[in-house]
């Protein structure tokens, strides 16, 4: 008992408790955001296609997601004959866990500073709106999202259905192909920041000024958005579930809550890539009019929501690729483009950039710099 209550244990326990509370809050917020996204997507699509969309349940259809949820809860769970029972159950679980874990390292804002109050701290620890500030933040997201493909592959395999298997295979092949371009589009940002930590990247943006950063990194940003669109299987890259040829692809055999979980994983992944883009390329919580408007987590959410809107917009505008076109575009256009950008940017950095100090001192310097609020 004495050992259990040692100061080190106590400190660790408090840290763990704070982290758990943060996890609970962010988990809940994301659930709400996910359910709102399903509604927003349907409403925006309807608006763009001159329809009305779901507007019966509640004010502007605001209760539609709840109605959908209740409906899915009471649907019958179907286990297809000859399915691999364990993997059939595991696939949605893997999908949803990887989708949520990736969001653990995304900073939603700097340290929480309230107007008229100042820095918020809990038990002597300054509170920042992020679950874990990892040294390898960007790589962590890359690792976890690359595990996310198992959810789809397993769902396709375990269903014991040709269409589902084809959907799963297509999707995994697509995700490998576009993961390359996705990862390489981060190189110029990481090179500029000298760190994988997302808060360091935002701090570098602040040093550069938000507009020069956004303009200089814009080629990488465009490539990132295209690759991310393919990575989360959205139209025009939704070959995995192209209804017209594969019925519904990998989630064909899923019903009830398992289906809901797969859908949810898809939306959470979409939120993840938009949150990441908001932090890496658009300056996160930094104000786009520095000096005029204060930095705030609201900016982060505004940028993220705008990117989510762009995804919906693209879905309403662009038709689906054919599979050979998808592969040709990924390997012969996107990857060469991003490779050229990386080499060009390295040349720029070597020619004009200042010498970067190692990441650890980088973080220290940013903290010490006057007038930098993180």
């Amino acid at each position, binding site marked *: 008992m004495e*050992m*259990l209550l*040692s100061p*080190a*244990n106590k400190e*660790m*326990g408090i840290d*763990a408790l704070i982290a758990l509370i943060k996890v609970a809050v962010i988990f809940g917020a994301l659930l709400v955001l996910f359910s709102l996204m399903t509604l927003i997507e349907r409403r925006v699509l309807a608006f763009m296609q001159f329809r009305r969309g779901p507007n019966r349940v509640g004010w502007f259809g605001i209760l539609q997601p709840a109605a959908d949820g209740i409906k899915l809860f009471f649907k019958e769970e179907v286990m297809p004959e000859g399915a*691999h029972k364990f*993997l059939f159950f*595991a696939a949605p679980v893997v999908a949803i866990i990887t989708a949520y874990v990736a969001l653990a390292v995304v900073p939603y804002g700097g340290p929480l500073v309230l107007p008229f109050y100042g820095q918020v701290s809990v038990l002597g620890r300054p509170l920042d709106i992020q679950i874990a500030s*990892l*040294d*390898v933040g960007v*790589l*962590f997201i*890359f*690792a*976890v999202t*690359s*595990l996310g*493909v*198992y959810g789809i*592959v*397993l769902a*396709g*395999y375990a269903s014991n259905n040709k269409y589902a*298997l084809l959907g*799963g*295979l297509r999707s*995994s*092949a697509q995700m*490998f192909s576009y993961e390359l371009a996705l990862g390489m589009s981060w190189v110029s940002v990481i090179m500029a920041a000298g760190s994988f930590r997302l808060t360091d990247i935002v701090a570098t943006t602040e040093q550069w000024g938000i507009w020069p950063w956004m303009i200089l990194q814009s080629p990488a940003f465009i490539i990132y958005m295209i690759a991310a669109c393919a990575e989360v299987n959205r139209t025009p890259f939704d070959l995995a579930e192209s209804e017209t040829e594969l019925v519904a692809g990998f989630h064909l055999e899923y019903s009830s809550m398992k289906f809901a979980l797969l859908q949810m994983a898809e939306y959470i992944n979409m939120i993840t890539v938009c949150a990441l883009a908001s932090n890496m390329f658009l300056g996160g919580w930094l104000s786009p009019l520095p000096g005029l408007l204060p930095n705030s987590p609201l900016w982060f959410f505004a940028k993220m929501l705008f990117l989510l809107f762009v995804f919906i917009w693209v879905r309403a505008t662009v038709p689906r690729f054919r599979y050979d076109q998808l592969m040709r575009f990924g390997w012969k256009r996107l990857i060469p483009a991003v490779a050229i950008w990386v080499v060009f940017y390295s040349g720029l950095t070597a020619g004009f950039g200042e010498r970067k100090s*190692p990441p650890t001192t980088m973080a220290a310097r940013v903290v010490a710099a006057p007038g930098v609020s993180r």
Partner: protein
Amino acid sequence: MILDVILFYGAAIVALASGLFVIAQRSPINSAFSLIVTMCSLAVMFAMLGSGFIAVLQVVVYAGAIMVLFLFVIMLLNTKQDEGDRGGGIGRAAMALGIILALQSMVVVWKGAETLPANQRVTTSADVARGLFSSPRFLYAFEATSILILSAMVGAIVVARKEKGK
């Protein structure tokens, strides 16, 4: 520090159990899935040693890239179960070689444990390169791992090859 202990034993038990499953399972897809779990729990251990970089690489390279390809191949070939063919003389030779290699790697781990402190932090890519290639002991373990992966790939080809007349 009690949290560390819980996390360590949790990850260790999962790693050992799933490692056993890899060789005990009949269906290749279950083995592949168990191997993914093993790699992820190893990544947890690396992270607990303060080597976040290695932990993430473990997931990206092994669990993320290599195992996806393996799973892909297994699914495309749709091999449900092996037929219980133990391979006769070659099988026995392979078993003997396996036991020798297992003993050898135990010796390596034993010797290594004396000299390498567990909490030595390896975080940057330069540290990783230095650790791997400057001392022959780790180089041996590194190369042994590569051979292991190579043998797994050869195994996959053997499983995939269609026998004549079938």
